[in-house]
């Protein structure tokens, strides 16, 4: 007799095939948050009305993000018998053009195309897998993001979804944990703790009630890996959670997701309902007697609430403050019960391990870091976006191949990983492999996947100051070293960037930073000094220039730069004179002007206004005195 799941699978596959290989063109529009902020909802609207107007029968589906943020809004068109074509930068106007030329006509508009997806070739359009953005990537966790309709559970099932759960339910807890152990999966939330080991602790802990929590707080500034996954493939998380619940012996799971992710929350709510209706969640899952319920808890968006013990306090309705360990949550967590906290990506990977097998999972990756990792690649690269790479890939490949190199072909200076808890890596370390241990050795951390690229225009002291400002604000204030240490370091960095630095400050920063790392109560304080310590390690000369010469070599710190007019080039056109808001430009009409350094507020207006043909205003490091 066929099981109910097989019936569902057959039905789902039919639905998926009818869409994939049907008679109608299929149009996919990326409407995750990133697409929406680039205007994809207008694109969607334009496609719909244009298709309506011309009376064309086609299927238009909203999908998640395929990660090409630099090219949003993204539209993919699959015409029967042809590979799908992915287009970038499609606003409402271009959308109309696509309908006219490619849906109605037969011109695939290669100018807008980023690449083809699937079997077959289209003249003048590369296969997307062969483009330099995608070539080094291996998309596993994000595979379905952007290709399935996240609101349609059948799409998920037709692509292997919930088969991992089916398999897991046929196993004992020990067997599931064993599979995860063989896969080599380590936590994707930051620290990279082996997932199986944590599960084992919780599985072995005594207690009639255990909990699973999915950490979807994603507080790192600039990180959006988890959001994209939740928006583009929410069932992957649910499947992973039920499997994890089964492995550790929990019957209840919480998803702690920040309230600033309304679309993710909406998709989760729908997915939970769908999974319940299909018997993949709730009581008696897949008729095995296993029960697992999922509740969504909206967080108010404090960075520290991503820390697991603070997160637990927050779910309990307490102030989101970390608790000292031991006891570890795996032994005594939510309401004092054994609890496992895993990141969204970790749990989605769990589903993949169970679907495709532990061996498959560990085929890619490096020796101690198996599988793939998603990154939000941002900053001064040509192609920003959400990428997924096999661990062990070098930073250079990520920045120059996937990211396309530095914006405007400027010089690379540093790359920051791990968000406010991580550090900056300089050019000479660009060949560092991206895995937990190599990044640690280089003075940073893998973190949850933020990767910010910086060029010569970034001042490293200012970068450190920026991150410190963040952690200082986000410190919960409970323990002394973090509450006062981050503040002290920020005060010092403010002094340095504003010209009040003292020669001894570098040592002081190092001493305080070290002590804060060693003595803070939770991971926030234990990692907060990293941006400072790593920039001190690799860019000490910049600190010294700020302190000793009162110069900002990157021309970022206002108090340590000066504007000056080259009197040989100045024609006295008076454009700068009129633009200066501080009346700091002196000079007669048609005579060379000069900047009154006492009055200058370093706004740079003169620099901007001086016509390129004269180019007489220069910005230089250091504090000029009047008359210099």
């Amino acid at each position, binding site marked *: 007799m066929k099981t109910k799941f097989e019936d569902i699978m057959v039905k789902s596959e039919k639905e998926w095939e009818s869409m994939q290989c049907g008679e109608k063109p299929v149009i996919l529009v990326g409407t995750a948050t990133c697409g929406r902020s680039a205007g994809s909802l207008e694109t969607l609207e334009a496609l719909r009305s244009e298709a309506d107007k011309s009376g064309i029968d086609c299927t238009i589906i909203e999908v998640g993000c395929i990660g090409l943020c630099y090219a949003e809004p993204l539209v993919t068109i699959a015409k029967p018998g042809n590979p799908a074509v992915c287009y970038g930068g499609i606003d409402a106007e271009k959308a109309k053009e696509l309908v006219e030329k490619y849906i109605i006509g037969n011109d695939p508009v290669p100018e807008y195309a980023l690449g083809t997806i699937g079997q077959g070739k289209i003249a003048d359009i590369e296969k997307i897998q062969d483009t330099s953005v995608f070539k080094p990537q291996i998309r596993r966790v994000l595979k379905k993001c952007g290709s399935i309709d996240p609101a349609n559970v059948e799409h998920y099932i037709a692509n292997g979804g919930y088969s991992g759960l089916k398999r897991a339910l046929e196993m004992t807890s020990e067997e599931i944990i064993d599979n995860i152990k063989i896969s080599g999966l380590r936590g994707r939330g930051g620290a990279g703790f082996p997932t199986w080991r944590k599960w084992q602790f919780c599985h072995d802990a005594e207690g009639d009630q255990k909990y699973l929590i999915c950490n979807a707080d994603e507080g790192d500034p600039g990180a959006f890996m988890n959001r994209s996954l939740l928006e583009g493939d929410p069932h992957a998380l649910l499947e992973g959670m039920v499997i994890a619940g089964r492995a550790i012996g929990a019957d209840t799971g919480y998803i702690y997701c920040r309230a600033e992710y309304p679309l993710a929350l909406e998709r989760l709510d729908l997915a939970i309902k769908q999974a319940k209706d299909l018997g993949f969640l709730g009581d008696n899952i897949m008729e095995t007697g296993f029960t697992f319920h999922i509740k969504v808890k909206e967080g108010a968006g*404090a960075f*520290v609430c991503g820390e697991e013990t603070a997160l637990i306090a927050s779910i309990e309705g307490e*102030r989101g*403050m970390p608790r*000292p360990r031991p006891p570890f949550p795996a032994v005594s967590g939510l309401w004092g019960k054994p609890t496992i906290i895993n990141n969204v990506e970790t749990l989605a990977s769990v589903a993949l391990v169970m679907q495709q097998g532990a061996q498959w999972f560990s085929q890619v990756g490096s020796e101690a870091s198996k599988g793939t990792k998603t990154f939000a690649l941002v900053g001064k690269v040509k192609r920003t976006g959400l990428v997924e790479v096999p661990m062990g890939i070098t930073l250079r490949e990520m920045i120059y191949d996937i990211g396309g190199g530095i914006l405007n072909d400027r010089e690379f200076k540093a790359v920051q990983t791990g968000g406010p808890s991580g550090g900056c890596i300089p050019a000479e370390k660009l060949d560092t492999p991206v895995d937990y241990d190599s990044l640690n050795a280089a003075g940073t951390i893998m973190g949850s996947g933020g990767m910010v690229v910086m060029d010569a225009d970034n001042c490293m002291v200012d970068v450190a100051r920026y991150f410190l400002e963040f952690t*200082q*604000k*986000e*410190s*919960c*204030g*409970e*323990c*002394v*070293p973090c*509450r*006062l*240490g*981050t*503040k*002290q370091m920020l*005060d*010092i960095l403010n*002094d340095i960037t504003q010209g009040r630095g*003292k020669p*001894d400050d570098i040592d*002081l920063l190092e*001493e*305080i930073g*070290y*002590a*804060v790392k*060693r*003595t*803070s*109560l939770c991971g926030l304080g234990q990692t907060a000094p990293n941006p400072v310590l790593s920039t001190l390690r690799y860019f000490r000369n910049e600190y010294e220039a700020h302190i000793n010469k009162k110069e900002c070599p990157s021309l970022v710190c206002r108090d340590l730069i000066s504007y000056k007019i080259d009197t040989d080039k100045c024609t006295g056109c008076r454009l700068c004179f009129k633009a200066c808001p501080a009346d700091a430009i002196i000079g007669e009409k048609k005579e060379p002007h000069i900047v009154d350094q006492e009055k200058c507020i370093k706004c740079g207006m003169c620099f901007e206004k001086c016509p390129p043909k004269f180019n007489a205003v220069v910005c230089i490091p250091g504090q000029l005195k009047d008359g210099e």
Partner: protein
Amino acid sequence: MEKVKLTIDGLEISADKDKTILQAALENDIYIPHLCYHPDLEKVAVCRVCMVDVAGRGLTISCRAPVEEGLVVKTDSEELKKVRKVPVQLLFANHKTDCITCGKNDDCELQRIAKYLGLEADELNRLRFAEMDDPIDDSNPFFDRDPNKCVYCGICIRTCSELQNINAIDFSNRGYSTRVSTFGGGPIVESRCESCGECVVRCPVGALLPKTTEQPAREVKSVCTYCGVGCGILLGVRGHKIVSVRGDGENIVNRGSLCVKGRYGFGFINSPERLTKPLIRKNGELVEAEWDEALDFAAEKLKSCKSDEVAVFASAKCTNEDNYVIQKFSRAVLGTNSVDHCARL
């Protein structure tokens, strides 16, 4: 309780199995700096100054780490020297240091730690000092709250919640802006605080201080006269005046705790308005009398009354035994059941 043996700085000590390293050390007269630990309260481990070096483990927060058989603990090491001073230096850079005029001078845990760690002026002068100008809350009639001296150990908060069950105060804001606040942040006198002062006696620094900090020359064991509980107190005497009251930690009745009256209500003792002699109303006016005269007068009057014409009102300031005798006297001698007592304040 099962005992375990461990060594601290080479000294072998034994401790109950359920003790922490810090407790074991303190019981054996070995000092380890600590600020947020209090024996009566939950251990929150937030000040981070109680670090010790445990062989095989490295830096360990001693106030939460349980003792274990064979632990080898050092209270000082190169690594400790390197990191332990920093939190304390930072506390000083964020503290109003008017020690000489502070009511906590010489009895302050922060001073004690600073002295133990040997903080030096050169080290402190490198730091950026914060401006300490938060307003003082002097609304309570018995104690003041000075946030500029608070080290945010949370002892007051835990006291109010764990021991007193009042929950008048908690942390508000976060990070560097963290403060100890009443609900809504108003003055403490308008909060649900009962002025018991339990937090005040536990505050390790001068952030919570009684309004009067006059120091006694000696202390005398006594029993609180306010109610029948009979809390043990230590009356602080200076010259011929009682200038302070402390709960007697050794007294099994209250183990050091007191209520607002017992702790702060001793002003009457030296009050010039206090009655020191009995008064008899003569021609409508109260006139001072000698005890013999007053007692004779009272006895005469009682004798002349019928049972149902008298009622007896006893004082909570008398002992339970006194009160027992007075009700016996009322019922058996005076023949009235109309007996009452003032202990319902």
